């Protein structure tokens, strides 16, 4: 994982991936959250793309490295790589696309196959909630599914910026508490800040 030169601008660096069927609005969720932008005519994501945003959670600066993946079946083999090291997953479906809701099970299975599911925090997101006329999946169905798997659930709209920040903050909070637990249990957790700082310092000494 890449480290920024100045380690003081964040306390934690975590990797979050956004997955879900093609056309559910993954890229728009991301651009709304990171850049407060929404575009109706967004190009399909090819392979993978990522954005970075630093947020405050409980007084800690959390730097989110958010990976946007391609939804099409053909790219699923590639996207497996991107599960590696992910601490958070935003699993997205579209409330106006029944199929994408039905495929949530498949996505959950691929999360289980590709990650150590105990360390990964999930959030289920039903996007495009603003398009009530074309709705194919009710809020109750979404809630029922999320309870079945015990995952927090949000209905969002990347267009009207509804619940986007809430979903990410919910995820971030749970990631932090897992990280704190891990740090408490183990003296050498995966993401040790001190280690990072030490390495940065030697690097900085080298070039200055």
């Amino acid at each position: 994982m890449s480290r920024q030169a100045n380690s003081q601008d964040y306390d934690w660096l975590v990797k979050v991936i956004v997955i879900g069927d093609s056309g559910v609005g993954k890229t728009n969720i991301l651009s709304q959250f990171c850049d407060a932008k929404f575009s109706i005519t967004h190009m399909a994501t090819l392979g993978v793309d990522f954005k970075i945003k630093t947020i405050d959670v409980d007084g800690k600066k959390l730097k989110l490295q958010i990976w946007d993946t391609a939804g099409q079946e053909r790219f699923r083999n590639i996207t497996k790589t991107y599960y590696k090291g992910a601490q958070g997953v935003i699993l997205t479906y579209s409330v106006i696309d029944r199929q994408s809701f039905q495929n949530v099970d498949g996505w959950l299975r691929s999360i289980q196959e590709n990650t150590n599911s105990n360390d990964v925090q999930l959030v289920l997101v039903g996007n495009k909630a603003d398009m009530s006329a074309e709705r194919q999946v009710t809020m109750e169905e979404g809630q029922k599914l999320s309870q079945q798997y015990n995952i927090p659930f949000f209905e969002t709209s990347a267009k009207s910026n509804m619940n986007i920040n809430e979903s990410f903050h919910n995820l971030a909070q749970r990631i932090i508490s897992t990280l704190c637990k891990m740090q408490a249990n183990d003296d050498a957790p995966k993401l040790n800040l001190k280690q990072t700082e030490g390495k940065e310092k030697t690097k900085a000494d080298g070039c200055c």
Partner: protein
Amino acid sequence: MWLTKSYSFIKTRIDYHIKKSSQIQEQQPVVIKQQSSNFKNRQRSTSVNKSMTKINIIKDFYYISKDDQYVYNTIEITDNLFIEQIKKENKILEKIDWLVILKNKSFLGYKIQQIHQSIMLQTIEYDIRRQWWIFASNQEQNMKELKNQSFQKLILSDTLHKIQIKKDAARTIIHDMFKQQENQQSLKNILIAYANYDKELGYVQGLNIIVANLLVCYDLSVNDSQLNDFEIIDKDRDETVFFIFLYIMKDRNWRTVFLEGFKGLRLKIDVLEQMIKKKIPELHKHFYDEGIVKMNLYLD
């Protein structure tokens, strides 16, 4: 007379067919020399002068194809600044020449240098370029190979990829022309036709962008502002673009880039990695230091 042409960093590749004749075979390969017309250029070229001549012509080979009639010549041009000496005796091809070539479907009577320089100088007018694409993309033969199939039939067949194509056609707005519904429909049709033609590949995201760009390049009203006030009926546009696309995918073998497992893509990334290693070793080292030991790993 010295001519300067700028290229983007992306490698340009020119392929063309030349009718085999004794006159051509005796010719030396195209000579590309570094010369500069102004100081800035001179500074640039002196620093890279040594390697330039090597890089300019990576491959310059003759390959005799199946029917033994055409000599296939490939020249890769990879530099940013490319200067070519125009030999006075080489007449630059004019509109009439291109028409003759298109009519005879052969380059008989023209020299490699002439053709090369003319392509470099982009002397082909737009309307001829359109015909040239049809000629160069092997359309006639590919059309024959479809046998009892045709573009129109391929559009109508059903494909599993239809849903995905519909989703993507609506969000491939790379140019204003796709704000019109008919053009989106054309994009959809070509992709559906290809998915039906190449059942193994079907449709993969990314193909939409290639086809959309071909449509932009081939559309008359986009490229000829004089036609703005007219309503243009170009019935064959979609079919021609389909065959150009077919040529890129099948004859130029770009389909392997998109096939399951991305074999062709891996190969291209390998080549890119080797090129970075050779030409920008500092960058390669930086990647290596950051833990990117092999670029292909990101496809596993």
